[in-house]
C-alpha cells in the first residue's frame, strides 16, 4: 500500500517533470542551445504562483495561465537579447550565457525572497481524498493531469499544425527553411517562448504541492536534463515517457535508498545515459 502510494505520487510528479522538460527538449532540439537557466524559469513561475495566490488571492485556474504568459515573455526576451547573439559563437559563450542567466535569476531570487521555503495557502484545491486505500491529494492529481494534457497538446501542435511544421522545419535545417520562405528568427523566438511557457505552467502546477524556494531551480534543471537525455533530444513523447519514469524512480529511491541518495540515483542515471545511449530512449542518434 505504501508502495502503491509512492508510485502514484511519483507518476503525478513525473508528469510535471515531463512538462517542463518538454520545453527544454523543444529549445534544445530546435537550436542546439542548452538552457542552463531552465530550472530557474520553473522556480520563477513558482514564485509568480505564490505571489498571485497570497497577494491577489487567485486560484490555480488564474495563476497557472499567468505564470505561463509571464514565462513566455521571459523566454522570448532571453532569446532576443541574449541567445540570438551567442548561438553561432564559440561554445564557451553559449554555455556562459545561459549559465550566467541562471546565476542571476537564482541569486536575485535569494536576495529578494530569502532562502526560506514558502508555500501556497493550504487546500487551494480541496481536501485529501482516499480511494482504495490511496491518499489522493487533489493538487497532485490536478497537476499530473494538466501536465499530461499540455504535453500532448504540445506534441499535437508540433506535428499537426502548420505552425508546428514551420518550427520543425527550422529545427531540421535552418537554411532550407529560409529557402522556402520561413523566417528562422521569429520561429526560434517562438520556440523559446513556448519552451518557457511550459516551465510557467509546470511551475504554477508544482507550486501547489512543492515548497517554493530559490534553490529548487538547481535540482530541477538536472532533472530536466536527465529527462531530455533519456527521452531523446527534441522528442516530446520521449520527454513524457522519461519524465514519468524519473518521477517514479525518484520516489522509489528516496524510499529505499534514502532521501540523501535519491539525487545520486538521478545523477548516476544521467551519467549512465550519457555514456551508453546519448541519443536517448526515443531520440535519433
Amino acid at each position, binding site marked *: 500500500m505504501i508502495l502503491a502510494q509512492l508510485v502514484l505520487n511519483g507518476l503525478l510528479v513525473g508528469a510535471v517533470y515531463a512538462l517542463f522538460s518538454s520545453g527544454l527538449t523543444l529549445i534544445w532540439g530546435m537550436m542546439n542551445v542548452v538552457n542552463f537557466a531552465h530550472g530557474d524559469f520553473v522556480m520563477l513561475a513558482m514564485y509568480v504562483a505564490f505571489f498571485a495566490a497570497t497577494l491577489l488571492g487567485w486560484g490555480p485556474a488564474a495563476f497557472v495561465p499567468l505564470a505561463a504568459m509571464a514565462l513566455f515573455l521571459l523566454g522570448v526576451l532571453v532569446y532576443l537579447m541574449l541567445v540570438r547573439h551567442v548561438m553561432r559563437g564559440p561554445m564557451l559563450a553559449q554555455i556562459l550565457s545561459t549559465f550566467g*542567466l541562471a546565476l542571476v535569476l537564482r541569486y*536575485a531570487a535569494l536576495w529578494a525572497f530569502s532562502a526560506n521555503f514558502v508555500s501556497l495557502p493550504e487546500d487551494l484545491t480541496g481536501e485529501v481524498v482516499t480511494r482504495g486505500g490511496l491518499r489522493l491529494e487533489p493538487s497532485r492529481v490536478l497537476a499530473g493531469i494538466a501536465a499530461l494534457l499540455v504535453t500532448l497538446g504540445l506534441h499535437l501542435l508540433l506535428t499537426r499544425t502548420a505552425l508546428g511544421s514551420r518550427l520543425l522545419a527550422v529545427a531540421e535545417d535552418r537554411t532550407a527553411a529560409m529557402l522556402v520562405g520561413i523566417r528562422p528568427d521569429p520561429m526560434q523566438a517562438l520556440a523559446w517562448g513556448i519552451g518557457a511557457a511550459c516551465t510557467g505552467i509546470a511551475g504554477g502546477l508544482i507550486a501547489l504541492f512543492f515548497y517554493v524556494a530559490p534553490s529548487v531551480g538547481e535540482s530541477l534543471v538536472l532533472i530536466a536534463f536527465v529527462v531530455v537525455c533519456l527521452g531523446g533530444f527534441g522528442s516530446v513523447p520521449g520527454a513524457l515517457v522519461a519524465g514519468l519514469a524519473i518521477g517514479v524512480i525518484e520516489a522509489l529511491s528516496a524510499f529505499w535508498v534514502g532521501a540523501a541518495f535519491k539525487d545520486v540515483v538521478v545523477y548516476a542515471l*544521467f551519467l549512465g545515459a550519457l555514456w551508453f545511449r546519448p541519443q536517448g530512449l526515443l531520440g535519433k542518434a
Partner: protein
Amino acid sequence: MSGGGMAMTASRGAWGRGVAVLGVLMVLALAALLPFALQDVFQQRIAALVLLAAISASAWNLIGGYAGQVSIGHAVFFGVGAYSSLLGYTLFEWPPIAGAPIGILISLVFATLIGLPTFRLRGHYFSMATIAAAELVRILVVNWPLVGGAVGLMGPAVPRSALDLSFTSPRPYYWIFLGVLAVLLLLTYQMSRSRMGFYLRAIKGQERAARGLGVPVQRYKYYALLLSAGFTSLAGSLYAMMVGFVDPDSGFGILISVRMVIIAALGGAGTLFGPLAGAIILVPLEEWTNAAFGGGGTGITYVVYGFVIMLISRFAPGGLAEIWRRLRAAGRRHA
C-alpha cells in the same frame, strides 16, 4: 652577405629570447617582493588568495580555455585535492602536503572516468556531465563518515613542524602559490607553442573538421583534462593547508567550479595571463563587496557575477584579453 645576415637574425632571435626570459625573471622577482610592500597582514592574505584563485583558474583554462571544453564541475578535482591532504593528516597523521600527490593521482583517475566517456559528446553534454559528476561526488562525501561527512575535515590545529605548512603569516603561502603559478603558466606556455597546443586550437575551433584532418581529438582532449585536473587538485591541497579545513560545500560545491570559470572567462579564457588578470580583479572585488554590502545583508555578489558572465558571453567572449586586443587594434587604426 646573406649568410652573415642570417647569422645576425639568428643571434637577434637568441637575444630576443634572452631578453624575454630576463623580463619574466624580473617580473617574478618583483612579484615575490610584493608581500614586503604590503604592510597590512590582511592585504597579504588577499594577495595570496589572488594567486590561489589564479592557479585554479589557470588550471581550468587548460581544458576550458585552450581546448574549448567547458567544464563546470572542476570542483571535483579541487575537492579531491583538499580532502586528500586533510585525510592524510586525519587518518595517518601525515603533514597535509603528503596527501597532495595522492590527491593528484585520484584526480587523474576521476578525469579518466569523467572524460573518456563524455569527450565524444558535444560541448553542452560535456558541461552537464561535469556538473552531474561533481554533484554526485559531493553528495557521496556528505554521506560518508570516514571522510568527515557533512562536518568536514580539519587540518592540524597547531602546527607540529614547518612541514605542516601551517603558517600564521600569509607571506609564505604567497610565495608557495607564486611558485606553483609560475610553473603552471610556464607549462601552459610551452604547451600552447607545442603540437598539443596546435591540435587543441584546431579542436576548439572546429572539432569535426579537425577530426576529418586526422587530429587525434579524443586523445588530446584527454591530455588537456589530465593536466588540468592535476593542477586543480594541487590548488585544492594548497587551499586546505592555508584554511586548515574543508567540508563538502567548500571542497566540492558548484560555486567553486563557477568561480574558476568566471575568473578565467573574465580575464580571457584561452590566453596565458587571462586567468591571472581575472583573479587580480575579482578576488579583491569580492572582499570589497563583502565589506561594502555584506554587513548590510544584501548578498548580491552572485547576481553581479551572473551579470558579468552574461555580458562577457554576449559582448566579449574572450574576456578582458579580447577587449584589450580590440582597443589596441582600434588604437592602431587611428594612429
